[in-house]
């Protein structure tokens, strides 16, 4: 794939470079159905499609069609080209009037993405605000309109009526606060599809308000009802109904999730880290969101350096085998050239099984060796850190008389004792292949933090001996920014026993299985406290 040539349609994920407009969590409630998700593509591959393929008509971003998205300008140039462009052109660089480099392509995508995403982020907020304004304005309108339209015929408002005014105002205040709390706050994540319940609640609210307006329009405005007390009661009943709908919203959106109902098992595909969580009744996308939050908290940082060894072994194993097809269907070729030849692969597997392989031996000794090396380095590190920590202590009363050059603040103290342990720490991290997780800056910062909190050397070291959870490291080390939910069932459907889905990111994926928590039957048994009686079992020996 020539990355420097023009492109017609493209689809890609911006992961590491999409820093300014990502952070993965964006409020994005789509009101359109999305197509099924494609596999994620690396940012370095730009898919070039000839103009007649379907993907050009709807360029896909994050696996979904972007309706109304302005097509990138490069497309227009290509539409004028030949239909056989993809098949007949060999050297594409420089043949079209528009030729972009890799960076420009990425920058182009980002520009478009920005515009659409800002749009997307504010749509649900705007809708929420609209509904909120309608909710606020309607009861007030119910009250004000009669006073404006036929003030002379309106009956005066007695004490009970004015009490109802008070009640309306407080209920409206609570309703506004509640609506803000539930719907208008910035959401923490952007999910692929609209939450079914939010849509349902918005519809229900609008339906309710419309029916009230209908009733009001027919029975009160048209008939010009004079009973103001009745009108006020009507308005109060609307506010009550809205509060009940909000109560329903709280139950559907918040409370359903709390009672644990399913146990999900999350396995990381690269190193097999497994965790189990109890979640409530959620839709698949909401469950995916919870699982990702747990992922950042519980799973140790993904370290690709630890996986290379097994890949090397596998590659060595395969490299030793070559299959030649001598039966003469076409020119003789190796197995790689005939992917459809089942016989070749079967032969390879059989030969591999029979081959006397000593890789297990190598693995055993290599692991034992590595273990020993790590332990030795660790011992050196522990000693170095302990010695370093003995050189610094908190200033006490009597030290105030010491020379000012000896009194340091925490940053300087950290910098002073850091060099004595730096080498040992560096070597240890290199042996355990975690040196890319910790920069010198971060180590010094951590050291200062430990000194401020009077931690022991062991406490300081704990952060480096054990790989911590993903969230502890900065976002540049996560290797897990943009997540794709891959699921056979619709992502807004509820989880059930046996549901399986996967959360894919660039380097690895999390496979999730759902099991329901069993129905637990608990019976009681009363134990009388006086019933605890004991006898001694003896085995005595008597001599006669």
């Amino acid at each position: 794939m020539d990355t420097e040539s023009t492109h017609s349609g493209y689809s890609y994920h911006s992961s590491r470079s999409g820093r300014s407009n990502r952070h993965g969590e964006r409020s994005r409630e789509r009101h359109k159905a999305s197509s099924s998700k494609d596999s994620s593509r690396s940012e370095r591959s730009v898919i070039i499609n000839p103009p007649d393929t379907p993907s050009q008509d709807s360029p896909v971003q994050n696996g979904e069609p972007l309706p109304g998205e302005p097509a990138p300008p490069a497309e227009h140039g290509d539409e004028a080209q030949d239909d056989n462009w993809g098949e007949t052109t060999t050297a594409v660089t420089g043949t079209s009037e528009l030729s972009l480099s890799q960076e420009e392509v990425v920058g182009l995508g980002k520009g478009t993405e920005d515009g659409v995403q800002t749009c997307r982020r504010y749509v649900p907020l705007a809708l929420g605000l609209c509904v909120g304004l309608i909710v606020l304005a309607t009861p007030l309108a119910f009250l004000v309109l009669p006073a404006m339209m036929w003030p002379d015929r309106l009956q005066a408002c007695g004490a009970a009526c004015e009490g109802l005014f008070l009640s309306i105002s407080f209920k409206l205040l609570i309703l506004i606060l509640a609506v803000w709390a539930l719907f208008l706050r910035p959401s923490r994540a952007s999910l692929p599809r609209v939450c079914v319940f939010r849509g349902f609640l918005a519809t229900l609210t609008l339906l309710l308000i419309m029916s009230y307006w209908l009733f009001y329009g027919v029975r009160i405005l048209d008939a010009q009802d004079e009973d103001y007390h009745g009108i006020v009661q009507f308005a109060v009943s609307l506010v009550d109904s809205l509060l009940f709908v909000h109560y329903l919203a709280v139950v559907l959106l918040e409370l359903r999730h709390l009672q644990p109902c399913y146990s999900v098992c999350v396995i990381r595909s690269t190193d097999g880290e497994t965790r189990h969580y109890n979640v409530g009744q959620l839709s698949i996308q909401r469950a995916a969101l919870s699982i990702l939050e747990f992922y950042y908290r519980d799973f140790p940082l993904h370290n690709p350096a630890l996986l290379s060894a097994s890949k090397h072994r596998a590659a060595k194993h395969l490299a030793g085998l070559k299959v030649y097809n001598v039966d003469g269907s076409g020119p003789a070729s190796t197995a790689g050239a005939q992917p459809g030849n089942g016989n070749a692969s079967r032969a390879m597997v059989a030969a591999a099984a029979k081959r006397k392989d000593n890789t297990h031996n190598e693995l055993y000794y290599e692991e034992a060796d590595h273990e020993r090396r790590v332990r030795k380095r660790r011992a050196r590190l522990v000693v170095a850190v302990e010695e370093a920590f003995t050189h610094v202590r908190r200033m006490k009363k009597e030290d105030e008389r010491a020379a000012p050059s000896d009194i340091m603040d925490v940053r300087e103290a950290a910098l002073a004792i850091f060099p004595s342990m730096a080498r040992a720490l560096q070597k240890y991290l290199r042996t355990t292949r975690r040196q890319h997780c910790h920069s010198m800056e971060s180590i010094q910062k951590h050291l200062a933090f430990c000194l401020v909190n009077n931690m022991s050397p062991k406490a300081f070291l704990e952060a480096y001996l054990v790989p911590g959870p993903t969230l502890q490291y900065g976002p540049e080390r996560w290797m897990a920014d943009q997540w794709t939910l891959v699921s056979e069932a619709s992502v807004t459907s509820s989880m059930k026993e046996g549901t399986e889905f996967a959360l894919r990111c660039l380097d690895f994926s999390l496979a999730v299985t759902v099991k329901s928590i069993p129905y637990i039957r608990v019976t009681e048994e009363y134990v009388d406290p006086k019933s605890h009686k004991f006898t001694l079992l003896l085995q005595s020996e008597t001599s006669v």
Partner: protein
Amino acid sequence: MYFVPGQPVTAVVQRIEIHKLRQGEHLILGFSIGGGIDQDPGQNPFSEDKTDKGIYVTRVTPGGPAEVADLRMGDKIMQVNGWDMTMVTHDQARKRLTKKNEKVVRLLVTRKSLEEAVKHSMTTYPKQ
């Protein structure tokens, strides 16, 4: 020596006659007993069936009258002077063995090797 509750116990027994030895003012037999219906049968190291609550010989003092009379460790005492020992408490057993006015005690004891010896002799010699 399995027993079926409710059925009579059958066992191959050996008669052992022990003459008590005077030691100071006591008459001793020179062995120790363990077991009894008031004891924990599971802790008996000599019994085959761990629910057997019979009286077992746990120790034999070397050179004592019991050893002279060929009493061995691990023997189960079935009778003492005609009195049954399979269903007695530990204390009752002790009392039956240490009666002051008896100089001789005649025991019926059983052990695994007796049964095997009988079986062996039955198979070795042809039936006549």
